[in-house]
């Protein structure tokens, strides 16, 4: 009996402590590990918001990407978790959490705060992926394009960035003739070389068929352009890619690009900062969109999603502050080269700023990376098939059928 009393007392004390830790005016945010610039900016934004809202505190918990996803799954099962969380917007990531009911619709807050009047259309589009409601508020907008080495292009006799896919292939051939590997990828991380396949699908199939293939509403094995894209992919990996590339990752690939070992690299807007800090002559590099021939830019969006079991109003109030002109202008560059707010612009734009702002202004729509469009099991098989084609262990002509066979059997 005595033991029972002690146990109850200890349990009560623990419960009291736990309750005391979750304060009514504390906003809990979960995110993946932030970069140094992003971390500094967020801390500043949090303290300003707290100062403007006496009594409110913001607590951010960060984890590595995989741990972040796992923690959110555990939270979903227990109906607990953060008030706000960071997640990529694509079907295989943010889509899963929306489907599982872990995202509160934000339509009423959009109407209340008029967010769509200040958000970039490309960023805003990632909140309407899961009708009938809006889910998430844009946190980050990323584009991926070809970075090229101006000097190596000049050496190969290429006067200007290619404007069409045929011109791009011709440029790659010229580079090869000049003894320069045209492009570099890090094959050990599946998603890096996947980008090449993604843009080739967009190029060969066009926007509508590409979307249908990713949504798996058409058969890969019966869609000729899918096989064309795999054939083209094999051509690039066997003839134009810096080799060997299957055993190193995207970071080593970037180092090789910076060391002038390859003329092009298909990377995200975030690489601009790396080129600025890791090379002595960043102006020697340029950026152009992969010429898919469609009117869509390759890239993805990241949203902050509101947990329906969390403090929704407080979360929305913070998000309103976060996407405000003032915060986005003051922290431009901390969350990617351009913010999600269309009213901001860099004060002293360099060559990369100009290139990326130009691309985001030029394109009104985007297509996402394969691993964000597919469910996770299909993504894993997509990677296996891409790598098998790249390593000559699967004929490119059989790749589309192999992927379809998996899709048919997945149940």
């Amino acid at each position, binding site marked *: 009996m005595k033991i029972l009393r002690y146990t109850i007392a200890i349990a009560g004390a623990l419960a009291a402590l736990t309750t005391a830790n979750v304060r009514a005016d504390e906003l809990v945010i979960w995110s993946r590990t932030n970069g140094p610039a992003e971390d500094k900016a967020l801390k500043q934004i949090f303290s300003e918001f707290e100062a403007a809202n006496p009594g409110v505190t913001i607590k951010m918990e960060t984890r590595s990407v*995989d741990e972040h996803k796992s923690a959110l*799954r555990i939270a979903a099962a227990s109906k607990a978790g953060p008030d706000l969380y960071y997640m990529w917007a694509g079907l295989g990531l943010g889509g899963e959490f929306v489907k599982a009911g872990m995202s509160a619709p934000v339509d009423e807050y959009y109407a209340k705060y008029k967010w769509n009047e200040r958000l970039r259309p490309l960023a805003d589009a990632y909140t309407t992926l899961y009708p009938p409601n809006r889910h998430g508020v844009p946190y980050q907008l990323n584009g991926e394009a070809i970075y090229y080495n101006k000097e190596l292009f000049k050496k190969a006799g290429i006067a200007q960035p290619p404007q069409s896919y045929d011109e791009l292939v011709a440029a790659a051939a010229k580079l090869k003739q000049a003894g320069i590997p045209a492009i570099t990828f890090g*094959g*050990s991380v599946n998603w890096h070389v996947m980008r090449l396949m993604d843009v080739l699908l967009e190029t060969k199939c066009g926007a509508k068929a590409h979307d249908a293939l990713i949504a798996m509403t058409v058969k890969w094995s019966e869609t000729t352009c899918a096989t064309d894209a795999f054939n083209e992919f094999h051509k690039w990996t066997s003839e134009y890619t810096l080799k*060997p590339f299957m055993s*190193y990752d995207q970071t080593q690939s970037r180092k090789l690009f910076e060391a002038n070992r390859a003329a092009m690299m298909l990377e995200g807007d975030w690489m601009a900062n790396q080129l600025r800090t890791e090379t002595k002559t960043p102006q020697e590099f340029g950026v152009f969109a992969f010429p898919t021939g469609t009117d869509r830019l390759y890239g993805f969006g990241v949203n902050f999603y509101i947990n329906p079991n969390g403090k929704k109003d407080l979360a929305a109030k913070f998000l309103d502050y976060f996407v405000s002109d003032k915060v986005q202008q003051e922290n431009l560059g901390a969350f990617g080269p351009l913010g999600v707010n269309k009213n901001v612009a860099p004060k002293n734009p360099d060559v990369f700023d100009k290139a990326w702002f130009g691309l985001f202004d030029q394109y009104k729509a985007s297509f996402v990376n394969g691993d964000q469009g597919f469910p*996770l099991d299909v993504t894993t098989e997509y990677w296996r098939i891409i790598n098998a084609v790249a390593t000559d*262990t699967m004929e490119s002509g059989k790749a589309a059928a192999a992927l379809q066979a998996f899709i048919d059997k997945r149940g």
Partner: protein
Amino acid sequence: MVVVPSDTIVLPRRSWRDGLTSAQAQGWILLAPALAIYAGFALYPMIEVFVLSFQKWNGLSPAREFVGFANYIFIFRDDPVFWMALGNTVIWTALAIVIPPILGFLLALALNQALPGRNALRAVFYLPVVIAPIAVATMWKWMYDPFFGLFSTLLTDIGFQSFIPDWLGNRRIALYSIFAGYVWQHAGFSMVLFLAGLQGVSDSLVEAARMDGASRFQVLRYVILPALRTTTTVVVVLSLIQSLRAFDIVYGMTLGGPAQSTQMLALWAFTQSMQIHDFGRGAAVAVVLLLMTIAVIIPYLLWRARNDKAQGRSA
């Protein structure tokens, strides 16, 4: 009057209170915390994994759907990676029970001699065992780097640039390249066990064999190896169990690639559960691996029990 046969001993009935004072009960009390932890953190998860292998669950939905043998049917019939992972696990295990033990034995034989700096050398060869496998993976990954790695640089320096293979990117050699790192890490473990075994080989037996005219090889073949039979069994079984659990080094070096060609059962179970979030299929793969491990462990435990009994160490 009851007549009790003279060879029958009647023991008094003991209550649990009597038992509490006995040495056996004290043993159980001392074991209880460890057993509770084992039950909570090993037995329960094992049972949970077994149950999960008959369910469909993505870690997000509140309900787990019972699907019978569907997960097993999928991994055996439709999963394009499972058989590759199983094949790699078998190859890996076969190599792991031969190569590190042989190397460890040779090292033990050498370091059992009265060499100058013998203890330092023993420490050097044992050192990789204490390094975390993920750190070993990182080191070897760098050494295999096709542009800046140690092996590529060495081959370039001696004029064999055109023969530099893509150690971790060529699916025909990637598994064996990883295995080389595994051997480097585990040979020292076998070495230490064999060294301990060699201490038990009677010097007088070796001397007697030599006086009878036995060559060095004959001494090894007919005196040392038979004396190391128990040690060899322990080394082989422990190497086998370790090899079935191979995960970190593969994860750290290739993530199972290229094109899943270095995938192993342990890593595939992890990938299915923690990256694809198909906990049912991941659990099915884990159960297959568990059954393989049990098939090895049970005979080993029985052998150990028989051996202990023969040596009079039974309870």
